[in-house]
């Protein structure tokens, strides 16, 4: 083989390997993310009862897909497709009556909290607990994600009432 052709083949192979490694490193490890999610639970506190909710529980209640706006302090607003469960359906599944609650306080593992009115929770297709964004699991705090779970209020166009890294939901009077 001509020396020039051999050199070009070598460069091509090196570049191919570099691109392949780069893609592999950046590709989200779906199985790993799913495993993390399966081990993660949300603590629901209502009427002096405690419930631990995991991925399988959410799927049993019934996952749905919807579109919502993500607007962060460093990015422009963009629409994304989310997979999750309506919070009102979760409450209904555990037979939690909101008659005596004025609000629900949702907290993340970073100690962030946000309060939602019972009215906005009971509104159809409005408040969701999500675990996928654009088909990918949200990822954990450690790997730069906003999951495993995040709450989303669809009516909130500025997305500043979301609770990422969600770990706790409490019904308050």
């Amino acid at each position: 083989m001509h020396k020039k052709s051999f050199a070009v083949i070598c460069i091509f192979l090196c570049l191919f390997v570099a691109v392949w490694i780069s893609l592999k490193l950046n590709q989200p490890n779906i199985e790993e993310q799913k495993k993390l999610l399966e081990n993660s639970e949300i603590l629901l506190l209502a009427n002096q009862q405690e419930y631990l909710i995991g991925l399988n529980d959410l799927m049993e209640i019934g996952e749905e897909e919807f579109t919502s706006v993500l607007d962060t302090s460093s990015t422009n607003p963009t629409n994304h497709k989310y997979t999750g469960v309506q919070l009102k359906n979760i409450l209904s599944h555990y037979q939690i009556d909101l008659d005596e609650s004025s609000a629900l306080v949702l907290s993340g593992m970073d100690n962030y909290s946000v309060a939602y009115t019972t009215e906005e929770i009971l509104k159809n297709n409005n408040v969701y607990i999500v675990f996928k964004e654009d088909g990918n699991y949200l990822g954990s705090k450690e790997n730069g994600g906003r999951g495993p779970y995040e709450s989303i209020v669809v009516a909130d166009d500025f997305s500043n009432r979301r609770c990422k890294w969600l770990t706790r939901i409490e019904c308050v009077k």
Partner: protein
Amino acid sequence: MRISKIIVLLTLIISNLFLGGCGSESKLQKNNSLELNGVTVFNKDENLVKNYIPKEKIHFKELVKESSKHISIITGDGSVRKTTADIYLSSNSNGVNITYKDKIISNVVGIYLHDNLYSIRDAFYDAKEHLDSDEKVMVILLDGFSLNQYNYAKKNNYIEYISKYYKNEALSVYTPVTNAGFAAIITGENPNINGVHDRSFRSMNVESMFAYALSKKKQAILLEADIKILDTEIEPKLHVDSNNDKNIDDEIFETAKSVAKDEYDLIFVHFHGIDDRGHAYGPQALETMNYIKQIDGYIQELSSIWNGPIILTADHGMHKFEDGGSHGSCIQEDMLVPYFKKEQ
């Protein structure tokens, strides 16, 4: 030879794809480095020079003729350094620099001319003084209430009650947004020290007045709207719009009246409605002024219940923007707010 040409072509395509993947980051870095933010010079009344980038080294007095005892240099990382007007300004690719006493301060975004430097950080020290004296204290944060709004409201009789307790103008912090201003008020430190620079920061590097109160075995409560803004040492009491009137301040006010009768030593109340209306209608719009009047009434009523001193200030100001208002720039409208203190 033909195979070789195909390989070269494929190599070029893959190289392009590979380099293209890195391109977005490079572009971002390039764009960021090209962001030449100029410096704004302001006093308590107006902006004297806006977004100025010196082409060559210039003495400050050549730029601004107005004399004042002191100036404070505000940098992009939130530091504030008080000095005299004997400074030189220059610029490079990183922004505006100031040279004084053989020191160079880089990334300068603002210069504030003043005789006395008052800051929203004073709220921390005033509250601490009361706690040290075993006195109860209430701190009220009027989100987005600018000095200009206060002056306009006072002139037009929208704020008759709290204007009696006006103490001085106060410098907010850079970036003038809620997280940074709120953190400065409760920690007594600027963002370069407390670590809260803008809306993306929630954790503080230093302890707040709540930690101080707890260390003194005092009872403290923080009344917030529906979002916990900072990771404070005490959990805030969150509120929602229970009566669906598109406003949460009324619910916060009801709680404030209730806890004012309790045994709290430190009550921190965060009203949000002035900021909401400033954004929606403009800082001096009729809707905003009427709301300031409503808040003035809230504070008068709280004063009749609360048997202790009250400190009032704002996290940031507000400037007119399109049909409404905005904030977040190092300009007089956003950086200066009023400071009130009602003794017992």
